[in-house]
């Protein structure tokens, strides 16, 4: 299963990071990424540039409304993400808690959709789910 780790930084975290030498941040993140690569779990990941280079497209109006960043009312900003392929939720949690982030930063961890998640009202998908359950039961039976 795949999980996305979404980095969310508050203004205070971004301010605080300015006191830490850039080299130091790069090195810590580099080591973290390398560890995940060497463990064979890192599928994708990118860091995002400053929000001032970004913008928001709002669909609340008749025509989409574009607002330049940074976006005043937002308390937290997405600053990057990783996608990991792991065996369990716990493994995703373990990797997430190793991320070199400080106070004011959060990682939101979300599971990425797999085939099993497509709408269950689709007949094809329903059957596939049934089949997978059957397989799981058979395995369990073989085990015990």
């Amino acid at each position: 299963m795949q999980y996305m780790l979404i980095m969310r930084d508050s203004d205070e975290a971004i301010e605080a990071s300015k006191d830490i030498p850039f080299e130091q941040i790069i090195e810590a993140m580099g080591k973290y990424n390398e560890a995940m690569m060497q463990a064979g779990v890192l599928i994708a990941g990118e860091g995002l540039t400053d929000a001032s280079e970004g913008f928001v497209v709002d669909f609340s109006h008749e025509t989409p409304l574009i607002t330049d960043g940074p976006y005043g009312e937002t308390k937290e900003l997405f600053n990057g993400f990783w996608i990991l392929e792991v065996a369990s939720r716990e493994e995703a949690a373990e990797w997430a808690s190793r991320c070199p982030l400080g106070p004011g930063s959060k990682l939101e961890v979300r599971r990425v959709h797999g085939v099993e998640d497509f709408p269950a009202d689709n007949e094809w998908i329903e059957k596939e789910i049934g089949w997978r359950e059957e397989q799981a039961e058979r395995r369990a039976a073989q085990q015990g």
Partner: protein
Amino acid sequence: MDDVTARRADSARRAVVAVWRIEAAKIVAVLTRYTGDFALAEDLAQEALAEALEQWPERGLPRNGAAWLTQVGKRRAVDHWRRQERYADRIAALGHDLEREQDAAADAVPWDPDEIADDVLRLVFTACHPALPQQARVALTLRVVGGLETAEIARAFLVPVATIQQRIVRAKQALADAGVPFETPSRAERPARIAAVLGVLYLIFTEGHAATEGDDWMRPDLALEALRLARILAALQPDEPEVHGLLALLELTAARFPARVDAQGAPVLLADQDRRRWDRGAIRRGRAALRRAEGFGRGLGAYGLQAAIAECHAVAPSVEATDWRRIVAAYEGLERLRPSPVVALNRAVALSMADGPDAGPAAALAIVDGLAGERALAASHLLPSVRGELLARLGRDAEAAGAFALAAERTRNARERAVLLARAASPRR
């Protein structure tokens, strides 16, 4: 135990297993370096895991699981030597070191960051050592490099737990008997040893994606495990083109998993797959690995060539729009590297697609009939199933039905048999 307690215990157990999966290889490697004895180190690591499974769910996870597990392993090593009443002076020194280490930092990384990657690589080469039978290499690799539990390995291979335990015990004994050192192979040995490692990963993968026996057409967990191991190897051995070739092959093959079974769990052949279900992310990663393999400029190896073939399928919008010429060329390359009737058979299939609706199947049938005497294919369902397909395309229905029926008789996979029987009843689909 009530539900909440049970669920909490289960979650704690999974957390231990998660840490183990991440750290097992490094812990075994570091304990091997510490004790100078791979078999002993593996035992100690398993003891440490057992202790963690007992203690962590009750006391909570330690801040640094890897350090905790390594410490327990080292302490058990000292206990072991004490029981043996050997190395008296060494024990005293080690015991002293151990206490100092514990005091120093429970948070510190329990190994030298500059050395650990090389140690894990040594571990990979040890687990895949040619002194071991293939099955033992697979079991040992999954356990010491992959950090899988014996029960998980047994389940994946549909064998009793005792069988896997025995394979691992015998494998460790065989390595000790052969006096296999904990080393990366010499330059002269290297190509053969790398090939052995790649062979083990490929075997784990294929076992996962096409079960040779039983009802499961796919056991995707094992295939994903092989992929993870291939990524680990690519990180440890970035200078070996074929490592990237294998990784590319596995990614590009796994990309098709979502489309490989139908609603009833029956296999869907490549031609009939819904290509929209293919995993675009895996295709992207596979192609990137293939470009890396090609980037060395030394030509592709056997895995790289198979990856190139998989890439032709992955980028094609349909069977008809596939670059079959390029696939034929890749199979020709593969035949030069590793001549085999199976490869020749595959080249025939590609040729049947490349050369037009009549000339293609006719040319292919000539190759296929030429392979009829091959002993390697005598008991396989592959030859008659390909023959059936070609005959059907040439409109020779009665002969095609006979070939499909023979293929159905020969396959050991129940779901595959159902597909072949359906073709025997209605050869042209």
